[in-house]
């Protein structure tokens, strides 16, 4: 197919570089510099999509980010699929493959369209909710079909091979938008010595200068843009980011930019030096000042059947002609409420095509552009508007009538003008999204007929977004704002002279949004407000009639502005209609909230490199390599990779854990305990601090001794536990749970800094400095004796003692503490000596069958002893007494330590609190499910009061049966009773409530 709408000359495309592309399976040709939309228009493709709800044929409406219809699925490969791309913003490249997002079996012959046109009248807002409300059980089935009909693109089914970056910047002045005011502001700020970042969402910087009819310093406006860009790019402190959308404006001048680096080149990012380039970048900018130069979006008029392909906003017509050298049709009718839109007719006429008429809603238009149209003998019909478009897949005529705007009615008869394109303009809406992202509401200005920024600290709106719309004003305002921005960051203004731009006299626009029809809106053919979501003027009327008067309600009821375009084109028109129907002013109706992101952004850019192994930091112990070599299975505990169990051969997890558990009880096992949190505490008040922090007493702990401690929050609930050793009178070594280490250090620092600053005490995390190895089992002493230089006898080195020693020639601290209930030593060495010591232990330990065990065996062994694990037996609602750990609570300590007072509150004193017990299933083979609910009655009846839940449950090879720990209401009074655990599969397990200590309750095994 030829490019029948392409002009022979003109535009900023390169006709020497033809590009092939495919749309809906048909091959086309465009040129370098085209967007997908301009290339499709050049090729005469009218129907790009089917609409969301009514499946009506739709074509291109705009030339930018505000496009509601030309939304395509991009991707030559499965991995390269990108949904919801605006064809108006997608640069053409050779080999581009695009498809319509909607349309089944295809956009030209769409079956849903039949339903849409038949059912259109019967599909008012709320149709789906009202129709498919009952039965509720059938909704999933309905939804399946509704989704198929709606179809909003799809994600790739293969992994994205591309990579994405994040970058962080600090600058003095961030300028958003490189149109006339943005370029001027960037130049003024840069010449004042500011560090400047200038971003623009388009392929080429220049914005409206690229299709302007006006001259700057006597030369085409685009030449001035090029000169400014050249000057800026030569400056070292200026960063120019084309193809970069400022997508979010966050608190305190934090702006997120989405830079598309390769999406104008190919389906997937091309290779550079054999490596894949980053496809997109997310720039996170903290700016001294942000100059918003985001310009305006032109509002189309809302008239009947304004969605038929061939209806465009006026400015887009100019952009296609002047920038891309394509005319979107043969015969144009322009319907406008203002002078500025006359450019479309002038450009159309100058391109050698027929302007059938300009239909101006004003009675006496008289600006310079109007005069220019008159001098070309273009017919101008005043006091009138296009009230309806004719045609199905392309406009065939415009129905024009004189209108009474104030009375919202058509005056007199209508006339049909044959044409294939209708351009419309209802005025210009400042693009205030970034001024509203932090919650500030925009403010209506009657003189502009639009919302402007409500004022955001540190943000300076310039040019179009500031209501300075003429080119001359926009440039002047840009310079002024650039200087102001630099000055506000403490710089002095640089020198410059304003370029000369001839003034253009424009007449006053008239406020026109929805155009009256000969029939009432509810009976007239559909007048679309939000084309992406198929929201009509009648739908908004209906919503207000049904009581949804607040704009946020109208929005939710009709779907106005909920598309991927966030209603850039339709929102103001929708508000105007709601205002008219409810007889309020537009500012009284209020605006909806704009939220990031301004345009859709790929998840890749949001994720950056934070995926796969970089999603969450991983921490490895000094012994990790050995564990990997030994074939350990790992589990992640608070970012640490911990060996879970060490399977031998094809051993299952169950078998491995049973073997490891037996080995510890019968011989000797070893655990890598390096991940335990470790905190050094020093200072003359260290002991006092421990007394206040822990529930138990620390006054008498001597150097060389260790003690187990419980920590509560001030509400009396257990938050952490661990063993702390007294190294010297004013020096302690604390251990915390693996996952709690950072939080405990925060906690200690908070109490010290904010509550007890008078205490002289210092904390330092030493978790990573020490590697810890737990050697445990009846043979532990025998093994260690072979490697240490101290007396290991029970008399010389008792339970809960610690000693300094050399282990395998390496300085070490050995703690005789036990989490297994066996004779147990925890050896701490400097982390970089750990592997040497570990290997030495295995060398000497071979004859004892020294068995490495993982966290699962550790859990089984400690549970057999009834030892708690924080976060498993506790959940922030469990007191020391609930755990039966009164022995660890020092009620007689003089200072009211953290948690003490709360333990005497009536609620913490209740006898029916959930308390820790053991559960012994009556069937010894049963292993209860962790989390299973406990009831007292085995007969199923509703309601069935639940009295507790299982916190830990394992099969013990040492006991020969399954066993569990559980929190049960009034549990300590229920020892000996039978409780029941109904399961999801209908089984009901019975278990006897027993003491939580299942193994060696006298502690004989570690007191040896």
């Amino acid at each position, binding site marked *: 197919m030829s490019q029948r709408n392409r002009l022979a000359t003109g535009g900023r495309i390169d006709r020497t570089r033809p590009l092939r592309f495919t749309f809906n399976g048909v091959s086309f040709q465009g040129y370098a510099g085209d967007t997908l939309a301009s290339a499709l228009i050049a090729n005469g493709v009218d129907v790009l999509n089917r609409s969301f709800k009514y499946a009506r044929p739709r074509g291109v409406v705009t030339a930018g980010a505000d496009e509601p219809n030309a939304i395509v699925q991009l991707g030559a490969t499965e991995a390269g699929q990108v949904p919801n791309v605006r064809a108006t913003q997608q640069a053409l490249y050779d080999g581009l493959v695009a498809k319509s997002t909607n349309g089944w079996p295809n956009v030209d012959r769409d079956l849903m369209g039949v339903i849409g046109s038949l059912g259109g009248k019967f599909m008012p807002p709320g149709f789906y909710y009202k129709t498919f409300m009952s039965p509720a059980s059938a909704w999933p089935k309905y939804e399946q079909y509704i989704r198929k009909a709606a179809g909003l693109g799809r994600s790739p089914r293969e992994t994205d091979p591309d990579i994405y970056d994040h970058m962080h910047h600090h600058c003095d002045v961030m300028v958003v938008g490189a149109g006339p005011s943005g370029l001027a502001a960037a130049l003024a700020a840069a010449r004042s010595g500011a560090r400047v970042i200038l971003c623009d969402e388009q392929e080429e910087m220049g914005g409206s200068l690229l299709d302007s009819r006006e001259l700057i310093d006597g030369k085409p406006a685009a030449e001035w843009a090029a000169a400014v860009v050249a000057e800026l790019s030569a400056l070292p402190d200026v960063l120019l980011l084309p193809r970069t959308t400022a997508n979010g404006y966050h608190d305190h001048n934090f702006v997120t930019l989405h830079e598309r680096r390769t999406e104008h080149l190919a389906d997937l990012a091309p290779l550079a030096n054999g490596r894949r380039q980053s496809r997109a970048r997310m720039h996170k900018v903290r700016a001294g000042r942000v100059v918003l130069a985001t310009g305006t979006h032109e509002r189309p008029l809302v008239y009947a059947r304004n969605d038929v392909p061939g209806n465009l906003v006026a400015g887009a017509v100019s952009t296609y002609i002047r920038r891309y050298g394509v005319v979107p049709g043969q015969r144009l009718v322009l319907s406008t409420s203002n002078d500025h839109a006359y450019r479309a007719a002038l450009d159309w006429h100058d391109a050698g095509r027929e302007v059938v008429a300009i239909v101006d809603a004003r009675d006496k238009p008289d600006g310079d552009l109007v005069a220019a149209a008159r001098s070309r003998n273009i017919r101008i019909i005043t006091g009138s508007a296009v009230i309806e478009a004719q045609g199905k897949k392309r406009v065939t005529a415009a129905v024009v009538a004189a209108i009474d705007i104030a009375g919202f009615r058509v005056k007199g008869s209508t006339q049909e003008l044959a044409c294939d394109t209708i351009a419309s303009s209802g005025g210009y809406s400042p693009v205030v999204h970034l001024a509203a992202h932090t*919650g500030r509401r925009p403010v209506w200005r009657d003189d502009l007929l639009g919302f402007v920024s409500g004022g955001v600290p540190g943000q300076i709106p310039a040019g179009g977004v500031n209501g300075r719309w003429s080119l001359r004003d926009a440039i002047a305002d840009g310079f002024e704002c650039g200087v102001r921005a630099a000055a506000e960051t403490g710089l002095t203004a640089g020198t410059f002279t304003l370029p000369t731009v001839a003034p253009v006299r424009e007449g006053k626009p008239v406020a026109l949004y929805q155009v009256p029809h000969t029939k009432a809106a509810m009976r007239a053919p559909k007048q679309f407000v939000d084309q992406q979501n198929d929201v009509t003027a009648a739908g908004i009327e209906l919503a207000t009639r049904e009581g949804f008067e607040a704009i946020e309600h109208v929005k939710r009821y009709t779907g106005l502005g909920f598309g991927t375009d966030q209603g850039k084109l339709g929102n103001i028109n929708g508000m105007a209609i709601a205002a008219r129907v409810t007889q309020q002013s537009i500012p009284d109706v209020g605006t909806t909230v704009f939220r990031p992101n301004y345009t859709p952004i790929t998840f890749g850019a949001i994720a950056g490199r934070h995926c796969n192994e970089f999603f969450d930091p991983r921490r490895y112990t000094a012994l990790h390599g050995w564990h990997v070599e030994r074939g350990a299975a790992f589990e992640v505990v608070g970012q640490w990779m911990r060996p879970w169990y060490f399977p031998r051969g094809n051993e299952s997890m169950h078998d491995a854990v049973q073997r490891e558990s037996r080995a510890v009880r019968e011989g000797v096992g070893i655990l890598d305990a390096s991940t335990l949190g470790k905190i050094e505490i020093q200072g003359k008040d260290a002991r006092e601090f421990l007394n206040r922090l822990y529930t138990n007493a620390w006054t008498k702990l001597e150097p060389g001794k260790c003690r187990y401690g419980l920590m509560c929050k001030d509400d009396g609930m257990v938050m952490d536990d661990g063993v702390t050793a007294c190294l010297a009178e004013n020096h302690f070594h604390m251990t915390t749970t693996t996952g709690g280490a950072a939080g405990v250090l925060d906690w200690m620092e908070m109490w010290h800094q904010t509550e007890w600053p008078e205490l002289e005490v210092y904390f330092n995390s030493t978790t990573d400095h020490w590697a810890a190895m737990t050697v445990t089992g009846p043979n532990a002493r025998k093994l260690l004796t072979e490697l240490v230089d101290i007396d290991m006898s029970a008399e010389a080195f008792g339970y809960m003692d610690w000693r300094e020693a050399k282990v395998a020639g390496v300085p070490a601290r050995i703690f005789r503490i036990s989490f297994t209930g066996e004779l147990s030593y925890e050896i701490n060495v400097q982390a970089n000596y750990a592997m040497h010591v570990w290997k030495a232990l295995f060398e000497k330990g071979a004859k004892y069958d020294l068995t490495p065990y993982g966290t699962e065996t550790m859990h089984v062994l400690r549970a057999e002893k009834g030892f708690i694990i924080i976060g498993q037996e506790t959940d922030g609602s469990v007191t020391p007494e609930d755990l039966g750990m009164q022995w660890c609570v020092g009620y007689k300590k003089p200072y*009211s330590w953290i948690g003490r007072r709360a333990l005497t509150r009536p609620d913490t004193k209740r006898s029916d609190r959930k308390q820790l017990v053991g559960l012994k299933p009556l069937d010894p083979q049963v292993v209860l499910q962790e989390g299973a609910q406990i009831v007292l009655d085995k007969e199923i009846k509703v309601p069935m009061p639940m009295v507790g839940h299982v916190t830990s449950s394992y099969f013990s090879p040492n006991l020969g049966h399954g066993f569990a720990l559980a929190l049960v209401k009034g549990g300590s009074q229920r020892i000996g009773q039978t409780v029941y655990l109904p399961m999801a599969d209908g089984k009901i397990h019975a278990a006897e409530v027993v003491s939580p200590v299942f193994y060696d309750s006298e502690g004989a095994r570690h007191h040896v």
Partner: protein
Amino acid sequence: MLHIYCPHCDEYREEEEFRPKGEAHIARPADPENTSDEDWGNYLFFRKNPRGLHHEQWFHSAGCRKFFNVTRDTVSYEILETYKPGQQPTVTAESRQAQASAQASNQGAAK
């Protein structure tokens, strides 16, 4: 993303370096054992949730690891001041109101 001035570091730093720690100026009762259950409950569980000025405690956890206080507007997220533990805020809801009414009366006088 807030931009927070750490009064210990004397520098603006990104919010990512900090952790919020809730309402500031909550003093632990000096004599807990002689504090009523109700007062202890208030100390433990009851917090302000103002629309407007709020004094918050923040922790420079990935920086100097020191605690400090922030006076922040919960509507605009504007931070009006940061100050060290033990110090009192200079901007409060009351001072702001007094300032606003003083301004209003000045304007009235000017007219």
